[in-house]
C-alpha cells in the first residue's frame, strides 16, 4: 500500500531480491524512488513516489514486465498496457 497520491511502482520479487538489478534501479532513477537495504535488496522510497517523472528509465533497466509504474490518477500503467497486480 502506498502513501503516494499520484504514482505507485510495482517491482517483481525476482528483481527486488537481485542485488545487481536493485543497484541498477537505484542508480537510474533521477528522483530516488529506489534504494537498497543493507542486504542489497530493493526498497521503494514511499515519500519519493510522487516525484516520479515518468521517464521509464527503471522500466528499461529491468527485464521486460518486471517493473511497472502506475498512474493512480488515471489508472494507466507504464509500460503501456501492463497488467497491475490485484487490479
Amino acid at each position, binding site marked *: 500500500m502506498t502513501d503516494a497520491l499520484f504514482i505507485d511502482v510495482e517491482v517483481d520479487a525476482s528483481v527486488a531480491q537481485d542485488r545487481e538489478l536493485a543497484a541498477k534501479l537505484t542508480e537510474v532513477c533521477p528522483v530516488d524512488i529506489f534504494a537498497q537495504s543493507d542486504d542489497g535488496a530493493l526498497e521503494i522510497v514511499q515519500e519519493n513516489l*510522487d516525484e516520479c*517523472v515518468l521517464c521509464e528509465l527503471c522500466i528499461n533497466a529491468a527485464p521486460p514486465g518486471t517493473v511497472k509504474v502506475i*498512474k493512480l490518477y*488515471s489508472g494507466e500503467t507504464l509500460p503501456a498496457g501492463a497488467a497491475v497486480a490485484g487490479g
Partner: protein
Amino acid sequence: MRFFEYESRAIVAKAGIPITKQGFAKTPEEARRIAEQIGGPVVIKSQVLSGGRMKAGGVKFADTPDEAAGHAERILELEIGGHMPRGVLVDDRADVKHEYYAGVVWDGIRKLPVILFSDMGGIDIEEVAENHPDHVARAHFSTLRPFSDWQAKQLISSLGVTGSALNRLTPILARLARLFLSYDMTLAEINPLGELTDGAFVALDAHMDMENEARPRQKELLHELGVGDEETRQAREPTPFELAGEQVDAMDHRGVAGNVTEFDGNLGLVIGAGGGSLTLFDAVRAQGGKPANYCEIGGNPSVRKACGLAKLVLQKPGVERIAVMMSIVSNTRVDIVARGVIKACVELGHDPAEKIAIFRIPGAWEEEGFKILERYGIEYADRSVSLHEAARRAVEKIQGGNGAGAEGDQFRQTTAEIGSETDV
C-alpha cells in the same frame, strides 16, 4: 540592491568623480575624529536605506567636532522609516555656488539606460521634470557602444551650460554613465552635484541601485565596499512568511519556487514563468482581486517544492483560495506542478477543487497535468484562455464566495468547453 550613501560616494569616487572630504562613522567618537580631520563645518547624515532623512532629523549641521559627535550620538539612535542607521556619514560642508543634478536610470520600456541632467539640483528630479521640464535634459544611450564625452557634453550644453562649467561637468557625467554600465546599476544618481565657489564640481550626495542579479559578477566591488552575501538590501526586512518562502526554494536544487513577497489579500498566488508572475499579479489586481502574495515558480521545480510553496501560501492567514497560473511553459512540467499544489491541499486537509480557484498552466506535459486536475475536479484552463481571463475567473470565485460541492461544479470546465473562449 541598494547602496548606502557612503557606499555610493565610494563608487562615485572610484569612477573618478570628485567628492567632498568625508568619512563613515559608527560611533560618536569616530564622527568626532572624522570632523577633526575635515577641519571645518560638517554635515552629519544618517546612513539608512530610506528616504526622508532630512525631515526625520537624520541630517544635522555641525561647526565643531564636539557638535559633530553630539549630533552623531542622537542620529545613531534615530529610527527612520522603520530602519535603524548603520552609521553616519560625516561630510565636509562645502561652499556651494550652484547645485546640479546628474543621473542615469534604466528605462524598462525602451530597454536602454537614459541619462538625465538638470541645472536645478538638490530637489527631486521628478518634481523638476514636472514643474520645470525645460530644465531637464535626457537622452537614451547604448549599452553596447562606449559612452563618449561628446554625448555628455551635448546633453549638458542643451541646457545652455557653457565655458568652464561645461568642460568640468562633461567628464563627470560621462564617468557616471560608464559606472552605470560597468557596475550593472539600475540607478546611478548624483544629487546634488555641487559647483563650489572656486568653480570645482563635487558629488554632494549619491544614490546607487545595482541589479540584484548582477551580484555574483560584481563580487569585487561588493567586497571592496564590505557588502556581505547575507545582506539582502531590500526596501524592507523580509517577513517570516517571505523567509519561509526562501526555505521552500532552498529545499532542493530543482527549479524555482520562491521569491515570495507578502501582501494582505485573500487570493494566494502560485504563479510564474518568464515574467508571467508580474503579468499575473497585475492581472489579478486589474480584475479587482487582492493578492495575498507574489511569488515565482518555474524552471521545473520538484513536486515537493511546488507542494511546499502551495502549502505556505494556503496556510497564510486570510487566504481563501489559491490561483495557480503561469504563461505557457516549456521547461516546467504542468503535471509536476499540478501534483505539487494538489498534494499541498490534500495534506492540509482541504478539497483541492475548493481551494484551487483556477489552474491555468499550459505547456509541457499538459495532457498529463489535465488528467490529474480532472481526477480532482479542479477547474483548469489551457492556452486558449488568456492570463487576464484566468485571473478574472479566479477573482470572480473569491468575490462570489463559491465553495466546493454543487456550487463549485459550475466553474469546472473541461478543455473542450473552454476551448472556444479565446481571449487575447
